[in-house]
């Protein structure tokens, strides 16, 4: 007969076992991708799959000369950073005014902003494509920066709004009494307090921009193509370079996955629009 303590221990060991099994199962594709990136192409295609092999760094060394990896990576970085900065410039003032000077229309405006996200991108693909063509912005980073700013703006406003709303008004009131202008209020008082919130908004925006694949596949071809487009180019049936594909993919995903690991707690709050704290 087991004591109560013992049953509980067996119980939690069992749960731990199941949880580990599920976690390993879900993580397996990523693990396998990273593993494959260290194989030779012959090992990568081998059947049955090889778990033990001579690791090689050749794939990583060859990526740059095969596809000009760095150019795509640079496009991804500039597009993500550009649209995040632009988005913050619009989102911070909007969130400030909604959080600290709400009117009877604030709620409606917030919901309306969110509803623009419901607009499926295919619905406006043709006009955006033609507009971009008209202005010579096809295959340019500027077009993607502007579009990403627009599609992420609602989420950024919401996210910053949920952080601002929790800041006691007294703090701003005090700054105002000292004669601070609105701009000073935001820059000197509000931003330092909400560093964490702004940081997680930036992070989320970077993740969304980095991984966005509809507009980047449709509006770029070579010059401005970010990593998503580079990787999609490997989807052709003749592309049996799986080890190299895995290496490119690993490089493309690693920064964002690590970002995500570090910031998971803040991300939850932002992603759930403050519904979960």
């Amino acid at each position: 007969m087991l004591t109560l303590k013992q049953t509980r221990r067996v119980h939690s060991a069992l749960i731990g076992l199941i949880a580990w099994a599920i976690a390993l199962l879900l993580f397996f594709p990523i693990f396998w991708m990273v593993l494959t990136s260290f194989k030779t192409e012959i090992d990568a295609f081998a059947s049955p799959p090889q778990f033990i092999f001579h690791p090689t760094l050749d794939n990583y060394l060859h990526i740059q000369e095969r596809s000009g990896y760095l150019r795509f990576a640079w496009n991804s970085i500039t597009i993500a950073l550009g649209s995040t900065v632009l988005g913050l410039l619009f989102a911070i003032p909007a969130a400030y005014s909604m959080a600290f000077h709400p009117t009877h229309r604030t709620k409606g405006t917030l919901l309306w902003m969110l509803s623009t996200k419901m607009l499926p991108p295919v619905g406006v693909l043709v006009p955006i494509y033609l507009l971009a063509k008209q202005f010579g912005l096809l295959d340019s980073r500027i077009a993607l920066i502007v579009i990403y700013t627009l599609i992420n703006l609602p989420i950024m406003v919401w996210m910053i709004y949920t952080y601002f709303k929790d800041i006691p008004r007294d703090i701003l009131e005090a700054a105002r009494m000292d004669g601070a202008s609105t701009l000073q209020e935001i820059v000197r008082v509000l931003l330092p307090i909400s560093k964490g919130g702004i940081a997680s908004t930036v992070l989320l925006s970077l993740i969304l921009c980095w991984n966005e694949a509809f507009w980047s596949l449709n509006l770029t071809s070579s010059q401005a193509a970010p990593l998503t487009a580079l990787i999609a180019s490997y989807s052709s049936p003749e592309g049996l370079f799986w080890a190299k594909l895995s290496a490119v993919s690993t490089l493309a995903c690693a920064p964002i996955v690590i970002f995500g690991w570090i910031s998971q707690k803040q991300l939850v709050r932002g992603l759930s629009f403050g519904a979960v704290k």
Partner: protein
Amino acid sequence: MTTSTIKTATTPAPAQPRQRKRRIGPGWFLVSPSVALLLIWMIVPLGMTLYFSTIRYNLLYPGENEFVGLENFTFFLTDPGFFPGAINTLLLVGSVLFISVVLGVLISALLEAADFGGRGVVRVLLISPFFIMPTVSALVWKNLIFHPVSGILAAVWRFFGAQPVDWLAQHPLLSIIIIVSWQWLPFAILILMTAMQSLDQEQKEAARLDGAGPIAIFWHLTLPHLARPIAVVIMIETIFLLSLFAEIFTTTSGGPGYASTNLAYLIYNQALLQFDVGMASAGGLIAVVIANIAAIFLIRMIGKNLTDQ
């Protein structure tokens, strides 16, 4: 609104309550750039789409842009791809939502049920797929997991003496549902797990002392507590799933036939592969209408929940 502006403008050296009123000005001023941008973003392309949808406009045959009324709409609605596309869209959204919410609740409940070794690591492993680029996850699944010769699943099938399955050719929609669920289940876990941690432990303890079993506690305490996070998961996933594109683009290209074509991919196909702008625009508008029906429904359900805090 106007009266208060006038009043405050003429009041010198305002006392504190007045000062707050004066601030209505900058408040309105600061929110308008975002609103204006989003308005333009919404109206200009939609207006153009609306216009294109009523003319004959094929990039391969320039100069014949006459008005055709609703012809494009009837063509799109009677296109052999429309019906499968609509059904596939619903199946995709519905099953991915179902899988991610149900499994998400179960897995996060499992994680909260006991304090076992390495819980932090398990958590990190579980949420990782969410951060993987859609094009990457589609290709990894296509080439390393689903591949009928050298994929992992083929090896597993062979191990049990079964004939390996060519997943993307034989079960294209199911395969895509698996890939997309793999991407979005971690998102549900991420949100729901954190939500569960905020559940009042004392309440749980009290219920336990009153003799409630774990299932009763889960049903009557945990699930109601999760209502709002679940609503958020449904809303965000629906937004992204309705316009799912990259995963189909990189794996099956909508085929074989229309077996894995959703509306987003069908419209893309019309516009950029067949150059039929008119018909693609009509399709785009239909997609917008469908999305709006979903949006109204979702905002009714969730919007109130989100703003009343």
